[in-house]
């Protein structure tokens, strides 16, 4: 079972979910390049300018481990990364668990993504212009400054830390991608987990994903926000167990 974290944080997102599966599964956790403890030099603007690049990373992990077909659990943007990887190499995937997925964040005609183009532009501008303020919680450089131990103590957690320049590009890749047409090409059975109220991936988006994924189940969690893996981990675990048991 492979867990992939979404935009913003790192594999720590799964701290309350992954342990529930270690007894029955070999559990694989990783950080996307640019996030958490990843090797920053592996980041390539050309490759990681599109979600396919991240999907290739996932496939390379699976190839390197040479696992039997995996259950891929992807949160947020990683749900779509898993979709792309499963289209490319279906034999590597047994099941997809898509937590709060969205194939397109921007409204488009009848499609409701949850954001207008102007709002996403504002977000990206905010990210581009504002990361000095944000960097208190993002930049690893400040964290690692040995000459300022008081900072290290204050920000003891390394959770949610990512390279600012990469995070800005990852934000563009995440929020400007449109992978709606890819959903119809998935052949891997999948579970869609949707929060009752999620500003980033609203209910309509979860329904849309469920409708377009050929062999999928939809479970709506009684939760608010975009991170049920942290806010209601027990619900996530239960939904996954039920789904996997039913197969």
């Amino acid at each position, binding site marked *: 079972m492979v867990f992939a974290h979404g935009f913003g944080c790192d594999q720590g997102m799964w701290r309350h979910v992954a342990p529930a599966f270690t007894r029955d599964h070999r559990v694989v956790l990783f950080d996307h390049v640019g996030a958490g403890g990843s090797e920053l030099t592996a980041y390539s603007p050309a490759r990681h300018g599109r979600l396919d690049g991240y999907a290739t990373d996932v496939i390379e992990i699976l190839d390197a481990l040479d696992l039997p077909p995996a259950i891929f659990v992807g949160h947020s943007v990683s749900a779509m990364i898993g979709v792309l990887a499963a289209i490319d190499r279906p034999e590597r995937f047994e099941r997809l668990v898509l937590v709060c997925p969205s194939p397109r964040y921007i409204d488009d005609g009848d499609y409701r993504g949850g954001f207008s183009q102007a709002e996403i532009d504002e977000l990206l501008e905010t990210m581009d212009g504002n990361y*000095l303020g944000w960097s208190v*919680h993002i930049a690893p450089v400040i964290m690692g400054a040995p000459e300022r131990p008081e900072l290290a103590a204050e920000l003891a957690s390394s959770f949610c830390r990512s390279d600012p320049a990469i995070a800005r*590009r990852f934000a563009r890749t995440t929020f400007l991608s449109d992978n709606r047409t890819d959903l119809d090409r998935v052949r891997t059975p999948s579970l869609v987990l949707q929060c009752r109220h999620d500003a980033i991936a609203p209910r309509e988006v979860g329904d849309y994903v469920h409708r377009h994924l050929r062999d999928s189940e939809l479970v709506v969690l009684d939760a608010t926000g975009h991170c049920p893996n942290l806010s209601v981990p027990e619900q996530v675990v239960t939904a996954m167990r039920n789904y996997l048991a039913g197969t």
Partner: protein
Amino acid sequence: MSDDRWDDAPCGLLTLDRDGTVLDANRTVLGWLGRERADVVGGARLQDLLAVGGRIYWDTHLAPLLHVDGRFDEVALELVTASGRLPVVMSAAASPGSEDVPAGVTRVAIHSAWERSRYEQELRAARSVAELSARRTRALQHATAALSSALGVDGVAAALLAAAVGPLGARSSTLWLTDPGTGLGAGLAEGEAAGSAAAPVLGDLAGRREAFVEGGRVVVPLHGQSTLQGVLSLRPYDDPGADPLDLPVLTAVGQQAGLALDRAHLYEQSASVAHELQRSLLAIAPPDDPRFAVATTYRPGVEMLEVGGDWHDIFLAGDGLLALCVGDVVGRGLAAASAMGQLRSAVRAVAGPEAGPGRLLSRLDRFVEQVEAASMATLAYAELDLATGELRYACAGHPPPLLVPADGEPRLLWDGRSPPLGAFTRPQHRGEARVRLAEGDRLLLYTDGLVERRDRTLDEGFELLRETVTGSADAPLEEVVQQLTRSMLRDESTRDDVCVLLLSWNGSVFERHVGADLSTLSATRHALGGWLASRGADRDTQMDVVLAVSEALANAAEHGLRGDPNEAVRVRAVVDRRADGRDDVVVTVHDRGQWRTPDPLIDRGRGLRIIEALVDDMLVRHEQGTTVVLRSRLQKGSS
């Protein structure tokens, strides 16, 4: 809870439940928001009070941090207020559970950050300027380094295209170079099919010196000092996460590339002047004398555009005294080519019957004192007495000549050696050596590029040279020279210049090779006539023998070799003194082909009949090809 300490605190205070719903808010924050308490408390969630950037940030970063760490500190956000956006700094911590605030409730403190925000904006602006400048400097440095180390116009073009899809960040790129007179040449593409980018219209570029966007691509004019040297067109990545192309950097790279192309053109012109100079110096017409034949070749080095300083020369140093020379001037380029020219002229000026090779080299020592660029040149010089076959030779720091006898093994002439020209600190005697050539013997002079290679010792090179030449004594000179350079320089990707001169001394023997295309027939007839005259033959004998030999040559080329341009017919003529004291001219015409029989005998027969009528005796032999032997009495007379 709504006492004054809470409500009138100089900062905004809120409490939230787990999903961010506002449980309470003080007057300060309500004042900022311009909203009623009832409107906010119990209904709104904190993220709904934030501008969209902060709203998403809340969900992707802050909510997870509250879950995992139980707090976050000093996060810069914007509140949406009645009068616009208010920059704030927010800290939040989950309550451990107290009398006032039960566990699970998050306490939030918000400070207005107008001033701090302005200061931060300035910092951010300064930082982004610094980052941009660093990024641009890096890209420029990469591109400039690649351009300045590129060699020639092709090299600059390749470096520019590589930089375009490398440090300059284009997905693909096409480059058009300006052809003088015809406008832009064909596009060179990197990462896309040639022709996939629309060729720019030169008129549209008039006066444009900066990179600009057109049709989704970036067009960069490449201006040199005085002319437009070309146009670069770059296609950006269209991926969501891609960085846009940087126009100011591309403008700067375009200027660099224009100047680099200027330099490359100048360099190639200078290289071609040097090539031209060298070619004209090497294009010598050897003296026309039937007693010897010569073949030469010059192969320029392949590593650089520049010419080297190798040369060969052959001239008459006196009556019947043939001078041969192969030399090598240190260095490359125009300077080396011009020093070579001067040294070559000096050799011609100094050579003469009274000098001899050793003294000639000593005089050249004095010459190179004046011409610094020719100092340390190496040289093999030989003088051949065309009447007797006596050869005097000397080598100044140069590889030894190779003697290829008509009968016997080739051997290197290791005598007559001394250091390179100008190597002595004070004038010293230079030695020379002698050897007598037999008729048909050959002498090979060459520069070190022929034998020197990184992957073998010099001795191995000499040995290989000997082996390669062995068994070639009967092959046409041109063929031997070509074969020699081909096999000696095989697989050599970085070789030096190579100069080769191969001389055959025929003595009283006349020997020529005529290509089966008969392109040199006329010259051979002329030479044979001259040789017959030099043997004292009268006018009639000259005409009859030349005509008979022409017929035999034409037969051999047409029927024996069927016009194959890679094959040659060998003509050899000697004077044979018979027992009765009479002199005969004996000419053999040999080809390696098989004459078709019997059908063409009609044609051939006609030719043979003409020959029979012209000479005293004729014989045809068929072994290892076909040999026609003609014999005629040498009638002496004034010609």
